[in-house]
């Protein structure tokens, strides 16, 4: 059976994103007869003639009524090579939080640009978000090429302009494809109208892009979710640490340390319901047995002695602010990192990312909805962290409102300790 690729899409309003997603679903035979019939009925009800593939994905009443996408929708399609989980994100400025949501788990982002308009402010913004969240692969789809008579210079101009912005943001190897989502050119099938284009179709690239990680090269991180103590007749003394390996490889016999508590022990076993295994890699949910009864409950991170995360009580971090109410220095919040949630105070804002110039500004008085900026955060209890740049899986955290529990920000641990 094939592997899994999580991807996300981003584009401005009317770039044809929903149409592109609909096209991908249709051309991979992921839309079944009754769904097509429903779209057909809905298209006709709105006075349309040609099948409106956007109606496949715009599922909420308000979306259909306003003809816009409001919320992230998850779509599933598969080819013989891979299964795809697609987070379809809205293009409106006010819904950047959804783009952040989609990008946080994506291994690949497809950024759409309308061939008639070229790069717009939204494009830069979306690309900045993808760079900010370090989506490993970014793909540019120059859409509506049919409206530009599949003109090569138009495509090349947008391609190089996009590449320049991507470079300035530190986004590596962008693959660009000229497409017509409406007619299917270069989406799943190679277009005869772009004979000048030698690259892959969009789907070719989705199937070929490397997934997974070089787990062997990563430091091992195992955030403990809970301690399993059955205390049954059959397992009277069993004490297993349940969790999902966040990074790296865990091997029986490893000398490990639990952080932040600092207890040390040796891995004596790795359990699964199918029996013990000798090693487990990033992404696996397992149960770890230790030689000693150290303090390693929920909130602790197991790491190998020689590859420890930083234990900090002050964080320098980047925040993408997702709440209507602005963030000001002095705010009291909760930080949820891995399996630990701690109280915290945002002591200072250190800068704001200007998405027009892509530079950091002077320390702002506040961080507003959808803004990205640096912050210093003092923690009530220590956290064991890695910088987000090193590890996407252990460097991200949530900022949560103490009063109503809402998620206020996506936080990224900076690459050095707070001063």
């Amino acid at each position, binding site marked *: 059976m094939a592997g899994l690729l999580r991807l996300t899409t981003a584009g401005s309003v009317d770039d044809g994103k929903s149409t592109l997603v609909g096209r991908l679903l249709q051309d991979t035979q992921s839309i079944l007869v009754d769904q097509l019939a429903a779209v057909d009925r809905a298209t006709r009800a709105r006075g349309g003639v040609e099948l409106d593939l956007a109606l496949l994905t715009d599922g909420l009443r308000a979306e259909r009524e306003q003809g816009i996408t409001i919320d992230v929708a*998850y779509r599933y399609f*598969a080819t013989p090579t891979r299964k795809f989980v697609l987070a379809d994100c809205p293009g409106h400025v006010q819904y950047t939080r959804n783009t952040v949501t989609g990008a946080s788990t994506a291994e690949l982002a497809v950024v759409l640009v309308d061939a008639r308009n070229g790069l717009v402010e939204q494009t830069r913004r979306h690309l900045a978000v993808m760079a900010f969240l370090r989506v490993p692969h970014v793909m540019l789809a120059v859409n509506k090429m049919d409206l530009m008579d599949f003109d090569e210079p138009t495509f090349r101009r947008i391609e190089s302009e996009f590449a320049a912005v991507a470079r300035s943001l530190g986004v590596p190897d962008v693959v660009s494809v000229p497409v017509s989502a409406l007619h299917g050119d270069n989406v799943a099938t190679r277009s005869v109208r772009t004979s000048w284009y030698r690259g892959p179709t969009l789907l070719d690239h989705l199937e070929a892009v490397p997934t997974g990680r070089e787990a062997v090269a990563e430091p091992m991180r195992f955030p403990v979710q809970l301690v399993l103590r059955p205390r049954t007749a059959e397992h009277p003394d*069993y004490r297993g640490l349940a969790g999902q390996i966040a990074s790296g490889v865990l091997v029986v016999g490893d000398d490990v340390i639990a952080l932040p508590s600092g207890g040390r022990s040796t891995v004596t076993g790795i359990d699964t319901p199918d029996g013990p295994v000798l090693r487990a890699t990033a*992404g696996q*949910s397992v149960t770890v047995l230790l030689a000693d009864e150290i303090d390693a409950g929920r909130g602790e991170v197991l790491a190998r002695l020689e590859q420890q995360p930083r234990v900090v009580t002050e964080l320098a971090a980047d925040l993408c602010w997702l709440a209507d109410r602005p963030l000001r220095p002095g705010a009291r919040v909760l930080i949820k990192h891995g399996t630990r949630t701690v109280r915290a105070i945002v002591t200072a804002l250190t800068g704001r990312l200007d998405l027009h110039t892509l530079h950091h500004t002077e320390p702002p008085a506040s961080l507003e909805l959808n803004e990205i900026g640096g912050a210093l955060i003092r923690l009530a209890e220590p956290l064991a962290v890695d910088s987000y740049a090193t590890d996407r899986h252990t460097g991200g955290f949530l900022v949560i409102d103490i009063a109503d*529990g809402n998620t206020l920000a996506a936080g990224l641990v900076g690459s050095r300790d707070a001063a």
Partner: protein
Amino acid sequence: MTAILTRIQRGNPHPDNPAECGTSGDHLAALESEAVHIIREVVAEFDRPVLLFSGGKDSAVLLHLALRALYPAPLPFPLLHVDTGHNFPEVIAFRDRVVADLGLRLHVAAVQDWIDDGRLTERPDGTRNPLQTVPLLDTINEHRFDAVFGGARRDEDRARAKERIVSLRDAFGGWDPRRQRPELWSLYNGRHTAGEHVRVFPLSNWTELDIWHYIARRDVPIPDIYYAHPREVFARDGMWLTAGEWGGPRNGERIVTKSVRYRTVGDASCTGAVESTAVTIDEVVTEVATSRITERGATRADDRLSEAAMEDRKRDGYF
């Protein structure tokens, strides 16, 4: 040792190939690990979880994953079945067998009880799927459940496609799609105030075909009516419905015996069977893989009512 746990232990062990259940394995292994992670998060962070268990295939897979997530510890929370009263006897027998074999606690919220004491009124069309919402919410309040595991999948419906994995419900059980929390990385924010609860959907990223592949791989027990069997049925709205005490057959609807199986099991009065000869799990997988109609389109009369039928039910607090 009970049947299901024996099956878990027997499973399909791959001690020499640990990648089999991680992201470096196939997509089914990745989905399994994700679901186990979600279930463990909720068990660790919530006081009073409950798992919705109808005896249908999705809830059977969900229960199986919960048992795996906590193995070898016993399941620390009860099951809840919101019973329409329009049941397939085979499914209720399966439900009761699973509960007895595993020594689990089961709450049953029977729609009939709510009708009998006047809290609910029977619908003119006689279907009871939409009537499940009130007993569900009442039972959640009565037992102060703070996390409700459900087997819903995003591929089932357009409104479900917008659902979070951990999804906040207000004191009225309502879902407001415009006020959903962003769900970042694999950090689930389930904080809630008194009276609120969360719905948790560990199967969010699974498709119908994934469910069937998984049932085959892990030998997950399911009711027999998911396999082809001869049955007395009658045709209505392009579906084969079981002849029974509720709603059918009516005038002019003729009972015939067909070889059928069910793709979903819900309110028996409006859940259709599909013609099939698939009697083994492999034959069912093949059939599902080549089907050109979604399971809801093939089998659920109530979802054909309107474009936004599911969204409207979810806003009211439905599963």
